[in-house]
């Protein structure tokens, strides 16, 4: 009996080692074959249930691999991934990584990789997003699957001449108290983007932060000017609790102008949560953008299938389908789409890059301390 058990165990190890391939060096065809052998993939997201459900059906039809899509909540998804971090095999194979959690998850070394060079089409996918996501160095561990951009969203029935420059925005806010909104930066990226722009405008630009991996105290010494800008206008600004809350409050008429993500706005319009007359632009003073990525968990059971799923979502057909269904701007640079909320000229001219992640984290904490708690 003992001999039989040892023999069975040895056989299992042998079969396991035969079927396991080195995903980082294997040819793409071998990865596809391995994915088919795995048979399924479990994917966690927190938005676009409509698109991902259809994509899962298309994926299964094309490869015969079942995609189990779980649409949860952003925080809950990451809490679950972190809770399972020390398990030899987790229950999540691949998940969306948003700007809010990219630093934490990268610091925790949660993802398998680097995966950039595994994909046949990696060169045509937003090159900067492969390296940096909202100021965090991701070094090819996280795969871009759509790009998004923050801009100013407004109600054209109430705003006839939206501000472009910093001076114009100041004047507009003074003339329309409480009508301009942005979310608490600890609760969403569009609010972070606005505070980022305020820091850039009031404390001497963003150039000086380039390349820093830690906060340099002398460079943030004058950020009190930015905090003063907010505290001086607390009775004129509306601070909301999330990206979507800003849009919802505009739909309800409480505010007439807000900072928002373009893909978020498109999704809210398509679901009847925001009026169709809404307009959006990137002001000349600049607002940051980025994109969301997908990461394969280090302890994923179906790594090859997870890679195949990412590659499938990155394909031209799926990028176009995603844009048509939910308005998410493609991550691919070799295709163009029509009917975007933000013009291509706006993106080229006025979109700005985030300062490094260390400053972003510092910005969020200091905003809470010096503005919200004042």
């Amino acid at each position, binding site marked *: 009996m003992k001999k039989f058990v040892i023999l069975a165990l040895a056989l299992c190890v042998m079969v396991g080692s035969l079927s396991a391939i080195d995903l980082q060096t294997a040819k793409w065809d071998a990865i596809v074959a391995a994915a088919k052998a795995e048979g399924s993939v479990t994917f966690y997201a*927190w938005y676009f*249930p409509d698109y991902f459900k259809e994509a899962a059906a298309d994926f299964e039809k094309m490869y015969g691999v079942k995609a189990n899509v779980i649409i949860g909540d952003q*925080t809950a998804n990451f809490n679950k991934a972190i809770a*399972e971090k020390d398990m030899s095999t987790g229950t*999540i194979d691949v998940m969306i990584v948003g700007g809010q959690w990219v630093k934490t998850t990268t610091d925790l070394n949660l993802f398998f990789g680097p995966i950039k060079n595994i994909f046949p089409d990696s060169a045509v996918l937003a090159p900067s997003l492969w390296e940096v996501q909202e100021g965090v160095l991701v070094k090819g561990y996280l795969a871009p699957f759509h790009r998004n951009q923050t801009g100013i969203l407004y109600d054209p029935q109430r705003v006839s001449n939206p501000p472009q420059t910093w001076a114009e925005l100041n004047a507009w806010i003074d003339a329309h108290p409480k009508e301009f909104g942005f979310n608490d930066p600890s609760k*969403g990226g569009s609010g972070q983007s606005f505070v980022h722009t305020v820091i850039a405008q009031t404390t001497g630009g963003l150039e000086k932060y380039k390349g820093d991996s830690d906060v340099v105290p002398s460079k943030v010494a004058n950020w009190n000017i930015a905090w003063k800008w907010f505290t001086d206008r607390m009775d004129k600004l509306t601070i909301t609790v999330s990206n979507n809350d800003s849009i919802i409050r505009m739909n309800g008429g409480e505010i007439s102008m807000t900072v928002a993500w373009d893909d978020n706005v498109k999704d809210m319009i398509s679901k*009847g949560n925001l009026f169709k007359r809404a307009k959006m632009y990137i002001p000349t003073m600049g607002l940051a953008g980025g994109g969301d990525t997908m990461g394969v968990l280090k302890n994923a059971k179906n790594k090859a299938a997870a890679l195949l799923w990412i590659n499938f979502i990155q394909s031209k057909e799926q990028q176009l389908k995603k844009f048509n269904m939910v308005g998410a701007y493609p991550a691919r640079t070799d295709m163009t789409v029509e009917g975007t909320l933000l013009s291509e000229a706006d993106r080229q001219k006025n979109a700005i890059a985030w300062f490094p992640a260390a400053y972003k984290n510092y910005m969020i904490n200091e905003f809470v301390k010096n503005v919200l708690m004042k």
Partner: protein
Amino acid sequence: MAGLSQAKPRSLLDIMNRRRLYGLLTTFFIVVQLIWIGTPIVMTVLWSLVNPDYPWSFPSMFPEKLSWAQWVYVFKYTNIIRALETSYAIAPCAVLLSFLLSLPTAYVLGRKKIPGKKFFMMIVLLPIIMPGMVVALFLSRVFQAFGLAQSFLGLVLAHTLMGLPYMIRVLTTSFEAIPQDIIDAAENLGANTFVKIRDIFLPMVRPGLLAGMVFAFTTSIEEFNLTFIIGTPTFETIPTILYSFLGYNFIRTNASVVALIMMIPNIVMLFAVERFLKSDYLSASLGKL
């Protein structure tokens, strides 16, 4: 006597005015209650029926056009049917297990004089005092170690844990409220333990038991954190779907649909047990409720 004889007799007008005042006050409070409770429900229903092509926006007081599109969306693009089946399979099991576990505990806490009783009463509240996600994260480690994660039994145990505090607290109060005289009288008349349980304890704690069951059931139906961490992806419940629309990515129209799907069976159940939720335990024991 003199004081009584000097009391002014109430005129018919006084009585009529007082009745009118009572009537007005009653109507006022009914209207306030209806607005207080009814408005969110009406708003939820209206938001769930918003036609995506005609968003409900400022300055419109009501949606321009209604449609079932949001309901179709939820049923088409989420696993709501699977979630409904799972939720309503787990909840009764969790309620039953909560009842079986809490009955002896509540009896001891309610009827026996034991040292550290107040401490125990506080300890049983811990699962609901601690933030749900914290409980879920720590419990998931234990469940993983015992092979209970991703299993139906694991979810029932997790939901039981969240229902127990309500069940124990309500049942303990019910046991405490049983007059000792009745138990003594029954003993004098020769009632044995079984008869006492059947004819005194169970009928008298029935209202508390039903209240505890309602709490445990609704807690199970609304439980998100434990289910999400311990149960998904194998199991999804209604709140796991609801949170995808209500959490970070708040979509009011879809969230309204899922909230109504979750709410309607609970309201039906509350109406069904409402008549038992009386505090008159003596009448209850005599079967006169």
